[in-house]
Every structure is written in structure tokens, then in C-alpha cells.
């Protein structure tokens, strides 16, 4: 019985860890989406943050000998800066040069992939990973007192009771923070107004451009945290293409979560759980190819279910006379 509970607690911990990068990136996607600009480039921003985080933390001992506690934070700062810079590049191309956001996003993703592989080769001479470099992980946060309680200890502090990475807590804190920022501050109100109707916002004296910049740059910051967690927590090295589609899963989570922080939290947990489930399947002689199909299929199924639910809700509102039948015509917009 306790063994079963322990197993479940281990899985819950694994789900939290798998959800962390998705949650960070999806929150980033939400902020820019609500400002009216869809961010296809979450994937690239995660990747570039992961790369520069690892490289900077590995070189930090050369720059600052004798301050080992600082190394992961230097890496973290470098990675976040890189992600924000990439988001800034996307914003400049979109808002200043008039590039289509989706095409520019695709370009930014390719740029991140190319730049990381190119620089990885130039810096380490290795095309696959930074396995030859000693990089650092972000610190773990160990909760005191709960270790003595059998299942709770594993649940809170993870397998081996070493404590969860600080960024796991950070992601869930970020969800609350983003929610507060979007729905309880003037900044959030302005941001959402710009996304809702840029013309109305403009005539109310809100700078549409400034808000869209803010949305894209903060999505870079949040996606950057996701990338940092992947390379300085989940693993402690950088591999080419290590983000492996998580940025796009995060984008799916934004839509699936109905563009609300709580919904996004649930969607990120669902995707995280499906990754853990896939890993468990791998233990039972299921071909790995089938295992790899689980998360994308769950994503598609979830999008379809979400759409069915929304349509039913719409129909109910039409029947209740609250909305008109034209609510359905959204499909062609």
C-alpha cells in the first residue's frame, strides 16, 4: 500500500518537473497572445536560453573564481538575457519592419536552432552536446520537516528527498504572478485591451506598440526560464534540439487553456503527465516509437475536445439568448 502511494508520489513529482518548462513557456505565450501577437518562437527562445545559460555557467568560474554559489545564477541571467534579446529581435522585425508574426516566428526558431548548433561547434568543437563542459544546475529547494512523513516527503522533495529544483516552484509562482499582473494591474488591463481591440485601445490613449513590445519581451523572459530549467535543472547540459517541440506544446497549452492562467496551468500539467505516462509505457516493452506518439496525440485530442466543449457552450449561450448565432462565424476569421 505504502509502496503504491510512494510510486504515485514519485509520478506526481515527475509530472511537476515535466510540466515546469511547459508552464513557463505557455505563460510567456499567454502574455504575448493576450497583447494580440501570437508567439510561434517560444521554442527558439527556450533553446537559446538553455544554450547561453549552460555556456555562461560553465565559463563563470573563469570570470569569477571563488564564488561557486553565483555560477548558476550567472548562467541563468545570461540565458534570460539571450532569450529576451531574441524576443526583441522578433518584436523589431514584426513591429518596426512589418514582418508577418508567424513567418518571423518561424525564422526566429530556425535562427535559434542554427545559432546554437553553430556556436556549440565553434565553442566546444562538438556537434551534439556540451557534455565536455562542466556546467551548473540551478539550486534545489529542500522543504524541511516533511521528510519524516513517509509519502509526503517524496511528494514534496522528490525521489531521493533531495528537494525539487527552485524553478519548479518558480513556474507555479509565475502562474500566480502572471495572473495577478494580467487581471489586477493597470498594465495587465492595457495589455489585454490592446489584444482585444487595438483600435479601441489606441483611441483610449494606450500605446499599442509599447504593449506589444512588452508582451513579446515578457514572453521571451518566461520562455527563457523554461529553457534554463531544461538545461540547468532537468538536465545539466545543453544538447542540440533539446527543447524537442516543448515550445510548440506550450503554444498548444495556451489555446487549450482558453487563454486563462488557470486553464494553462491545467493544460501544462496534462502535457507533463502525458510525458511521464509515455516514459512509463517505455518500461513495459511498448515500442519507443509508440511512446513518442503519445504526447502529440494527446495534444491533438485535447485540442479537439476543447473545441467541442467550447462549441457546446456557445450553442447553450445562443439558446439562452445571450449571444447571437454569429458567434459561430468566428471560424472564418
Amino acid at each position, binding site marked *: 500500500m505504502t509502496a503504491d502511494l510512494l510510486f504515485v508520489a514519485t509520478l506526481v513529482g515527475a509530472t511537476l518537473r515535466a510540466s515546469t518548462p511547459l508552464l513557463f513557456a505557455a505563460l510567456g505565450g499567454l502574455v504575448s497572445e493576450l497583447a494580440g501577437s501570437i508567439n510561434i518562437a517560444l521554442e527558439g527562445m527556450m533553446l537559446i536560453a538553455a544554450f547561453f545559460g549552460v555556456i555562461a555557467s560553465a565559463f563563470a568560474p573563469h570570470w569569477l573564481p571563488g564564488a561557486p554559489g553565483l555560477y548558476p545564477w550567472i548562467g541563468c541571467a545570461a540565458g534570460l538575457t539571450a532569450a529576451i534579446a531574441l524576443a526583441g529581435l522578433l518584436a523589431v522585425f514584426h513591429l518596426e519592419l512589418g514582418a508577418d508574426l508567424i513567418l518571423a516566428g518561424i525564422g526566429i526558431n530556425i535562427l535559434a536552432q542554427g545559432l546554437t548548433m553553430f556556436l556549440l561547434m565553434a565553442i566546444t568543437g562538438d556537434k551534439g552536446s556540451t557534455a565536455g563542459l562542466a556546467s551548473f544546475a540551478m539550486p534545489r529547494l529542500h522543504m524541511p520537516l516533511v521528510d519524516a512523513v513517509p509519502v509526503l516527503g517524496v511528494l514534496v522533495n522528490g525521489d531521493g528527498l533531495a528537494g525539487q529544483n527552485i524553478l519548479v516552484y518558480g513556474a507555479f509562482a509565475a502562474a500566480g504572478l502572471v495572473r495577478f499582473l494580467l487581471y489586477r494591474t493597470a498594465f495587465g488591463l492595457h495589455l489585454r485591451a490592446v489584444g482585444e481591440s487595438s*483600435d479601441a485601445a489606441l483611441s483610449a490613449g494606450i500605446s499599442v506598440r509599447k504593449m506589444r513590445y512588452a508582451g513579446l519581451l515578457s514572453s521571451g523572459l518566461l520562455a527563457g526560464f523554461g529553457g534554463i530549467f531544461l538545461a540547468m535543472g532537468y538536465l545539466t547540459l545543453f544538447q542540440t534540439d533539446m527543447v524537442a517541440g516543448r515550445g510548440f506544446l506550450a503554444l498548444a497549452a495556451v489555446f487549450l487553456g482558453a487563454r486563462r492562467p488557470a486553464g494553462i496551468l491545467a493544460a501544462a500539467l496534462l502535457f507533463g503527465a502525458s510525458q511521464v505516462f509515455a516514459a512509463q509505457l517505455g518500461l513495459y516493452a511498448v515500442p519507443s516509437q509508440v511512446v513518442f*506518439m503519445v504526447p*502529440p496525440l494527446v495534444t491533438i485530442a485535447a485540442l*479537439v475536445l476543447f473545441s467541442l466543449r467550447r462549441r457546446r457552450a456557445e450553442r447553450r449561450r445562443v439558446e439562452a439568448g445571450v449571444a447571437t448565432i454569429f458567434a459561430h462565424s468566428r*471560424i472564418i476569421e
Partner: protein
Amino acid sequence: MTVLGREILRAMLVLAAALAVGFIVTALVSHEPLKAYRALLTGALPEFARGADGGWAVRRVTRMGAVLEEAITLTFVGLAVAIPFQARQFSIGADGQVFLGALAAAAVSLAIGGPPFVVIPAACLAAMTAGFLWGLVPGLLKARFDANEIVTTLMLNIVAVQIYRLVIMDLMNDPAAGFLTTPALPLPSVLQVMIARTNVTAMLLWAPVAAFAAWLLMRRTTLGFEIRLMGENPLFAARAGVPIIRTTVLSIALGGVFAGLAGFHISNALLKRLPVDLNPGIGFSGIVVALIARNNPLAVPFAALAYAYLQVGAQVMERTSDVSREMVLILQALIVLFVASDRFGPRLHAFRRTRPFRRRAA
């Protein structure tokens, strides 16, 4: 200047700008940036040398062959991207369609015997059907469930690649090969080589034909008109009676037909057997080609040729200098960014939003 002249000038400008920025990046990390760039820009050229007996000989034919082989693949993939993009459906699913197209072509080639004029069309048709069907899925998901096609096609790419690997490992594996691959395709199903020491086949002629067919489809049929109208202004198209659902589905699925042809080319002309570790990623090159050609099917073969030339040059650069071939990914990204930019050179109408956000409208 004519419209065509302006388009060509614009494409040249974008390429030159991307190469210039790429050179700066190269110079930052390389000890021999000039040598590297010379290899990148001229490495793909064949070499004409005077032999010892006084006659002319052509060397490095394989490199030119590699350019043509790659250009054929890229033409098909570029068309596969250009058609949905003209409908403003951002399908990124060409990768998965190529994989399943190649798989279908190889499976049919291995399963049915007979003379080339039976097997080759059958394999080709199978590849096109596979691409079409795999394109139907995101099309239907978008039209019926309003599921974002960028997300669904990316997810379906993962699924397609895994199906491909599963089938090759479990159903079509050749245990005698020493690595995970299908058996070699039977000789009648393999296309005849046209240039010695290369894999350039009759597909070299069929690729421009496909581009012309795509142009006819987009410019001379009702469906093509509906696709373009929907891409320009979906609201207007709906009011004008364009069947939005059917057009959405078909624009993505028809792209799949061309991606399937790329798969057929890979399987029956280039590789002649399918290894399990075929590299994904060709779909993104297709996006770049479609963008350089500005989604015009007739321009796609030229854009594909230019891009293939750079890609082969990059491989030469990697072998002869200290710069790795990923440089091409950076160039690819810069090209996409520059082409997508409205205010970079002459205006780009195809991708304008219906209501562009103006800077100082108030």
C-alpha cells in the same frame, strides 16, 4: 522596371543581405572567414580542368549532381508549402507528408513486381496519396474543430516520423543489411540515372512540370482562385460564397500531394532503400524556398536551385574550413526574416494582415 524584374531584384537583395550578415557571424568565430565563404559560394560549382592529354575534363560532377538532386526535392517541398501558404494556412506539415510519401512509395515498390511502367507510376501514385491523406488530417482538424494548423501539423510531424520508424523497424526491415533499413528497392522500380555518377533522374524534368501544374491549379482553376481569395481576405471569400471548409482542407491536402512526390523522389531516385534514421527538417527548407519564390509556383524551381546550391556549398565549406555547415541554418533564418519583412524593400502583399496595425493612426 517590370514586375518580374522587381521580384528578381528583390530576391537577390534578400539573398545578398542574408549572406552579408552571415559573413559577419562567420568572421566572428572563424580564423579563415574568406576561405570559408569562398567555399560556400563556389564550392558547388563543377570544375573544368585541362587534362594531361590536352582535352577538357569536368571534375566534381558529383557536387553538381548533389545540387540538382537537392533542388528537385526542394522544388516539390517548396510547392507543398506554397499552396497552403497562399490560402494563409500555415501548415508546417511537409516533413510528415514527405516521410509517409517515401514510405508508401517504398512499400509499393517492394510489394508489387512488374515492369517499370507499372511499378513506377504505382509507387508515385501511392506517395501522392499518402501525402494527400496525411494533409487531410490537419485540414479537417482546422476546418471542423478550429484547431490551430501550426500546432497540429507539428504534432502530426512527430507522429508521422514515428510511424515511419515503426514500420521500417518492425515490418520492412532487411536483417541482411547490417543496419536498420528496408531491403533495396527492386531494379524496375528505381528511376534511371541521367547523369553518370549522380542520382539525377527523369525527376529533373518532372519537377518543373509539377511546378507548372501547381501554377495551373492556382491560376487557372476555380479551386485555385478560391484558395487565393481565401488567403487574401477570408471574410470576403466567405461572403462571396467560397466554400471555406472545403477550401481550407484541400489547400493543406493538395500541398501534401507535392510533399508526397518529394518522398517518392527520395525513395525511388535518391536512396533506393529507406534507412530508419532519415533526417527530418526538409519541411523548413521548403518554407524558405516557398518564401523566396513568394509562393509563386513558377518561381519555386529557381528558388530551390539557389537554395540547393548554397546547401551543397555549405557542405564543402565544412570540409575545407573551420566553419560548420549549420551556417546555412543561420542564412535560412535571415532569409525568412528579411523576406517576411514588409518594409524591407518593395511591399509584400501576399502576407499582409487584413487590418495592418498602423504606427500613428491616432
